[in-house]
């Protein structure tokens, strides 16, 4: 369970951004969580709810968008959304696949009330 450590880092960024924008309250936080990010949305949610108490985000809602694994074959250029983790092109059998998305763990945006 390393999600708490990720959320602790998220709150560092939230603090910076809310100071920068003079926020009085954070109302929503949007994350993009790749299926190969190594983080579990449910545990991020639990950690967020634990962490947010007594912060500007105490009433904020966390939205996590699960991002599927998408690859592009460097030989036949086929772009595939994968529901397994097999890095072999399902069209031409090549193993030269480039990952387009699915490994990210991003803070996408923050909704806040500002002065």
């Amino acid at each position, binding site marked *: *369970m*390393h999600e708490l450590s990720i959320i602790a880092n998220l709150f560092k960024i939230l603090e910076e951004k809310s100071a920068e924008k003079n926020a009085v309250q954070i109302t929503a936080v949007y994350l993009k969580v790749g299926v190969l990010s190594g983080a579990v949305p449910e545990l991020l949610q639990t950690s967020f709810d634990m962490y947010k108490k007594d912060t500007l985000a105490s009433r904020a809602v966390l939205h996590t968008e699960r991002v599927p694994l998408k690859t592009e074959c460097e030989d036949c250029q086929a772009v595939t959304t994968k529901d397994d983790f097999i890095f072999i092109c399902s069209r031409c059998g090549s193993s030269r696949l480039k990952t387009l998305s699915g490994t990210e763990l991003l803070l996408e945006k923050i909704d806040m*009330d500002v002065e």
Partner: protein
Amino acid sequence: MEQKEVLVLEDLLGSNNKIAAEIRAKLTGRGILPINLMSSPGSGKTTLLERLSEHLHPKYKMAVIEGDIETERDAERIRAKGIPAWQITTGGACHLEAKMVGRLFPKIPPDLNFLFIENVGNLVCPASYDLGESIRCLLLSTPEGDDKPKKYPKAFTTADCLVITKSDLVPPLPFNIERAQQEAREMNPSLQHFVTSAVRDTGIDTLAAYLIAQLERIRHPNA
């Protein structure tokens, strides 16, 4: 008061990745190959290091950073081999982070060849944290079963090499080495494969040769 939407697009592991990149640049710049060892508890990381030291030391200088939740036990075992070792006890945390490795930086001798970082025994959380390694080495021991790769996608898709340990236990264990390697290969086609037994001292020489070749690569990047 107004409502505002602030677009950020920031990597939540970005601060860790930044420290890791600095560690990697500093170490490889000095000609030191950093290796992150990851596996479940009890798969033989420390034993593999003890054996590897017999193949590398004293021709090559190695040191070990040991990550555990508690105790100095692993570091003591490595020191008993005449190898410098530093223990990081995470006090409960399930993985090492780059900043923990960074704190040990002043202790790392400049004339080192290999810096092994033995991660906390866990195939899940450590996989998300770059520690500044050049080689991510995954261990899978035969008692764990040959069906593990698909269960731990992050670890298996991000590793550079897979070391199957305790091969002397097959048989009697029904572990199918070819099956485990094939499954891992599908997930990570560029993965390098090794099969070792620390008890019989088999396969360790091949792994040592691979690490020496990787060391040469960072020492002579344009060769």
